[in-house]
């Protein structure tokens, strides 16, 4: 079915038009025209401006245009889709659409393209004005299509993410928290060695900056940082291709998850293999980007990157790995009620069912992927640095298992209040040691944090300069102690399941 015949799209279009689009279009036009007027004023009298030439002026005004365009299309579109979906789910309209014979893919596409129409109109106006600026300032012609493709593909990528979050979030605030994480927290790290951060390619900051810097002499450090081809395991890749490729591949998984959730609201949105594949793609892309810093000989910098250890890239990637895995595990971890219902269907209270459904086994699969990805950084130096690798990998194992066991335990024990308790315990295990270390001026307490061993092993200059340092033995012991927490949690988790499944045995299946 053509999107213009899709009933959900048509209805969203009607709703957008009924609420009014003229004011929004005029606002976009006014902003764009103001910037265009600025450029024209520069041409009329360049002395009033502090630009080195028409190209720089053009780039500045065009950068403002695409900045506003990105704000409207990516953040505005994301918020709009999220709001429409959570509102319609609450009102029962989502269910009404699901009860029609419309294929789930049509329903998803209808919301994806229909809900942010107003933002698309505004984006189109700004894009048109941007083209005029590019032509007037005689900027390289590739700049306009390149940046516009990236902005629109990012809007579609985050729009799809909003559809998925809208389908699984219990409350709109959950989606807003995710948006804050995606648009505020992650980009904060983007400016540390921009060519090496994956977030710069998912949000295509680097590719856009690269278009602006194309043909510029790499005189300043800022131009150096934001120009040139990124490398994946030493293979140069055009940044636009890397951004579009990543968004396309991850977008396929998001699309499949949204369609699956629409077809059957009771199933988790991501299949296990999809979670592992997504994790693998993102993680190997990230490790591929930073591979050139050490060429597999971590912590010894490669010849061309003698200052590789000045910026703690690997600890940042390590923390990012933990964050990504925790999000994926939370997405895939099944509601205990679902496992109970499956047990009721089968009429047994076998714990094996829990192991096969719970995200604990997935945590181990993610660990295997993360361990291989990390290994690429120290493959050539593993014989001397195996302790660093062991501490980092052990830390990942501890964190993945703690987060998934804690989440499932709290869901079993506290039901609706589970997230609050998960946050509490993660705070106690990860953040509280740092606070206590500050309060009592005792740095050693901070090392007890669940986050510390891996980050310290990958960042501490003493350790990196001396892989036989006794500090590493201390970190290994901390990892083992953390594994004790895993064991305790596992016992509590297992007891909760046994208690729940005991009730299943009491209720045999009825014919």
């Amino acid at each position, binding site marked *: 079915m053509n999107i213009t015949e899709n009933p959900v799209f048509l209805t969203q279009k009607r709703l957008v038009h009924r609420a009014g689009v003229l004011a929004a279009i005029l606002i976009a036009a006014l902003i764009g025209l103001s910037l265009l007027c600025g450029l024209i004023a520069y041409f009329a009298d360049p002395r009033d401006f502090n630009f080195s030439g028409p190209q720089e002026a053009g780039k500045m005004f065009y950068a403002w245009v695409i900045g506003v365009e990105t704000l409207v299309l990516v953040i505005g579109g994301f918020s709009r889709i999220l709001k429409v979906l959570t509102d319609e789910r609450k009102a029962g309209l989502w269910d009404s659409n699901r*009860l029609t014979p419309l294929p789930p893919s049509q329903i998803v596409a209808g919301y994806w393209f229909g809900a942010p129409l107003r933002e698309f109109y505004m984006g189109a106006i700004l894009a048109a004005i941007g083209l005029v600026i590019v032509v007037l300032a005689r900027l390289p012609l590739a700049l306009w299509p390149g940046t516009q493709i990236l902005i629109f593909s990012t809007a579609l990528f985050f729009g799809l993410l909003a559809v998925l979050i809208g389908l699984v979030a219990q409350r709109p605030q959950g989606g807003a928290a995710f948006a804050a994480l995606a648009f505020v927290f992650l980009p904060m790290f983007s400016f540390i060695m921009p060519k090496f951060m994956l977030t710069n390619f998912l949000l295509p900051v680097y590719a856009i900056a690269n278009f602006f810097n194309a043909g510029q002499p790499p005189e300043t450090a800022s131009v150096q940082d934001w120009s040139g081809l990124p490398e994946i395991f030493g293979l140069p890749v055009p940044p636009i291709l890397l951004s579009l490729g990543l968004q396309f591949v991850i977008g396929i998984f998001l699309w499949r998850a949204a369609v699956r959730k629409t077809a059957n609201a009771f199933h988790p949105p991501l299949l296990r293999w999809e979670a592992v594949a997504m994790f693998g793609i993102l993680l190997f892309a990230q490790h591929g980007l930073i591979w050139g810093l050490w060429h597999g000989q971590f912590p010894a910098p490669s010849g061309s990157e003698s200052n590789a250890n000045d910026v703690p890239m690997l600890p940042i990637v390590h923390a990012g790995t933990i964050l990504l895995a925790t999000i994926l595990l939370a997405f895939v971890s099944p509601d205990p009620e679902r496992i109970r219902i499956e047990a009721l269907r089968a009429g047994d209270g076998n714990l094996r069912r829990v192991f096969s459904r719970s995200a604990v086994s997935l945590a181990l699969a993610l660990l295997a992927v993360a361990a291989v990805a990390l290994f690429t950084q120290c493959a050539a130096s593993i014989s001397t640095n195996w302790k660093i690798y062991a501490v980092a990998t052990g830390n990942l194992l501890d964190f993945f298992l703690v987060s998934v066991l804690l989440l499932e335990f709290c869901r079993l024990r506290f039901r609706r209040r589970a997230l609050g308790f998960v946050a509490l315990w993660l705070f106690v295990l990860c953040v509280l040691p740092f606070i206590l270390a500050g309060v009592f001026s005792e740095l050693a307490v901070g090392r007890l944090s669940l986050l510390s061993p891996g980050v310290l092993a990958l960042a501490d200059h003493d350790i990196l300069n001396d892989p036989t340092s006794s500090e590493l033995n201390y970190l290994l012991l901390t990892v083992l102690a953390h594994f004790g927490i895993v064991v305790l949690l596992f016992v509590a988790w297992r007891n909760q399941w046994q208690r729940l499944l005991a009730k299943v045995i009491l209720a045999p299946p009825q014919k």
Partner: protein
Amino acid sequence: MPAPLLAIEHLRVDFPEVVAVNDLSLTVEAGDVCGLIGPNGAGKTTTMRAVSGLQERTRGSVRVGGHELASEPEELKKRLGFMPDFCPVYDQLTAAEFLDHFARAHDVPDRTKRIGECLELTWLTEKRDALCEELSRGMKQRLVLAKTLLPDPQVLLLDEPASGLDPLGRIELRKLLLKLRDVGKSVLISSHILTELSGFCNKAAIMERGKLVMSGTIAELGQKMGRRRLSVKWRHAGEKALQILKGAGVKNLETAAQGATFEFDGDAEALDGLLKTLVLEGVRVTEWRGSGDDLEQIFLQSGARELM
């Protein structure tokens, strides 16, 4: 015997702390209007949501027109219309646009004509171009009913359809349901207001705490109840009438000025015999009314508690 249009077998739905529907089996044939009766929390809405596929089933099968929900959900969606107990409408669309959305989704042929028909059926023709947000709750209820009727489904699940309707609306709804019954649709309609269902349900299923207490045609249920409540009025020979009634072993006899109400354990034949005796003994019977076929009576006697 043709297969029932709606067949529910051993349906079970679990919630974390409670079994919401427990081993429920029910069939509704073409032309049946089956009232799903029960107090609040009995599991009526959950049953309807499970039949429509909106609620996950723990066990059991649901077939509509021979198509199984688990294996052929798309076929089932074409044959089933579900009207929930609240009114999900797009506030910023007109009534006609709202119906157009669902007519397109169901790929209804000749949409404009069908939308007009459904608006007329639900007495909303005049509100065709009114925004949904301007409609009263009852009108929204009727609009959602019109949306449910749009694709001409074989089976209709109506969850508390009259809850927002005014008295006139309820009368019109009754007429509409009778019309649907006459054209061979199967209707499963839930309510905890029993008088709402009286008059057009030919079948009833009584639920309590997730379980089906009993089901069948209204007449069958009346008979199953055994003891019927009856009222009789006469013009002359009141003393004699009371003597005959006491002699026939009626229970809970309550006398009035020229009549009485009582409970009677006997079957239909014994009841006929009692009336015949009264007439033959010279009692001029002016009214003879059995309330055993009354839904409220059936419900009260079914053992289902916590009514309303």
